[in-house]
């Protein structure tokens, strides 16, 4: 069908706007500015091993893992309810879960400020009930909340879409053969939903580990993640070499986790259904 040459505009575009920029990141990551111009150096990469940056990496990883875990815990039961054929309201709920994603995410995140601030709505409620004022913002908890808030639908939808496809006959057969409810859940629902769970994990973890806006808006700059450090290197400090090195590490990190997750899911592709 068609000619190969139809692809040419894209092949040119791709080379200029995808491949060249990747090489530029590599170039900046492995060079430093000296009197003789740019020379090859590993200094930028070595700097990442400084305790300050290791801390930032660990913090980003921990917060992203925490929010992924919380999303999974909230989303799995929700997806099970939605996929239940006896549950009649599932279309309405699904539409309502998808709708907020159509609103600018910066704005939705920003709106949390009115709820979380020291004299925000939640604290007003808490105080009127006679409790102490709580510090809800400017900490890691607020960042995790922002991540869960923004990415929860990305966990619910893929899990729902695999659960809804599970053949009811399989479950009934298991029941006929004497399986308990918990047995059905453990031996049928969970294994068959694994591909959805894994793609949900990818879709939450990846944006969570690289975000810089959620941490900026909800922690007021107090919680610094890799994304924030990269942004700062490029737009504030002008240290493109170190910024590129950090981006490179982030990229490699994500590739490794993708490979890891894909390996987990490939085992199930040839499953029983």
């Amino acid at each position, binding site marked *: 069908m*068609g000619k190969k040459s139809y692809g040419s505009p894209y*092949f040119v575009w791709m080379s200029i706007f995808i491949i060249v*920029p990747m090489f530029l990141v590599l170039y*900046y990551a492995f060079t430093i500015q000296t009197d003789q111009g740019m020379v090859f150096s590993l200094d930028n990469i070595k700097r990442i091993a400084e305790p300050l940056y290791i801390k930032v990496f660990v913090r980003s990883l921990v917060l992203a893992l925490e929010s992924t875990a919380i999303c999974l815990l909230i989303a799995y039961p929700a997806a099970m309810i939605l996929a239940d054929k006896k549950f009649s309201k599932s279309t309405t709920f699904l539409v309502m879960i998808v709708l907020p994603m159509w609103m*600018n995410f*910066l704005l939705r995140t920003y709106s949390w400020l009115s709820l979380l601030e020291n004299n925000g709505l939640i604290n007003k409620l808490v105080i009127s009930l006679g409790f102490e004022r709580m510090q809800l913002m400017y900490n890691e908890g607020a960042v995790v909340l922002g991540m869960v808030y923004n990415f929860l639908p990305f966990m619910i939808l893929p899990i729902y879409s695999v659960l809804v496809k599970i053949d009811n006959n399989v479950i009934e057969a298991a029941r006929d053969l004497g399986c308990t409810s918990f047995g059905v859940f453990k031996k049928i629902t969970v294994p068959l939903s694994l591909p959805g769970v894994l793609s949900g994990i990818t879709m939450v973890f990846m944006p969570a580990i690289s975000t810089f*806006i959620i941490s900026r808006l909800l922690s007021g700059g107090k919680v610094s993640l890799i*994304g924030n450090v990269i942004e700062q290197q*490029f737009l504030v400090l002008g240290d493109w070499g170190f910024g*590129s090195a950090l981006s490179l590490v982030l990229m490699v990190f994500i590739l490794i986790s993708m490979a890891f997750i894909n390996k987990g899911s490939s085992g199930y592709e040839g499953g029983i259904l």
Partner: protein
Amino acid sequence: MIKGMKKIYLSLIILFLYAPIIVLVIFSFNESKNRNVWTGFSLKWYAELFRDRDILSALKYTFIIAIIAAVVSTLIGTLASIGMFRLKKFSFNLVKNVTYIPVLNPDIVTGISLMLLFVFLQFEMGFVTMLLSHITFCIPYVILSVLPKLKQTDISVYEAAQDLGATPMTALWKVVIPEIRPGIVTGFLLAFTLSVDDFVISYFTSGNGVENLSMVVFSMARKGINPTINALSTLLFVLVMSLLLVINKKNKESLF
């Protein structure tokens, strides 16, 4: 009993997802600029909206860029998918893997890498650089929605059309394109939405006062947001909601 629990559980999730949106909508009608105090109902922020130059210009740029980016990326992406189909396995996989780079890469990495490119090419940051970046991150999504449709297309129908005297161009236009149209439409819509919603990549590749809506929200967030933006998002939200309802009513298929 259990059914009630299920509804309560889902309702709590909905409450969580909508809490900030409800607050945002309510405060767009607040008379005071302060986002913690309710001083009375007022439509003044809606009136202000149509006088705010920053917001209006951001609205203009957001939609101009989204429309051009969606059209161009759909064109290039659809042609690319057809062209890719003729490639040998090795080249096909190579192109496909490169296409995945912007999809898998964190936005911030795509953003800074494009920024490095524009500096290297000595482009001035502004409308053009932002548009080029948007087209770049949209094309892969178009390709990824068209390719599967192309795989389902029966090549013998295309060959039959040619046997019956159609030129390759006519055969492509009359046979292949209608067949892959759903993929093209999905790709276009995806590109448009991604472009409208983008913040990170625009943030790194724009300049010279060219800002989209997300960027205005971000810069306002530093100075303290102005309720006009609440008014705008309320309007946009209502618009999107009614659009979705209309589409949903028109074809009884669900949204997904």
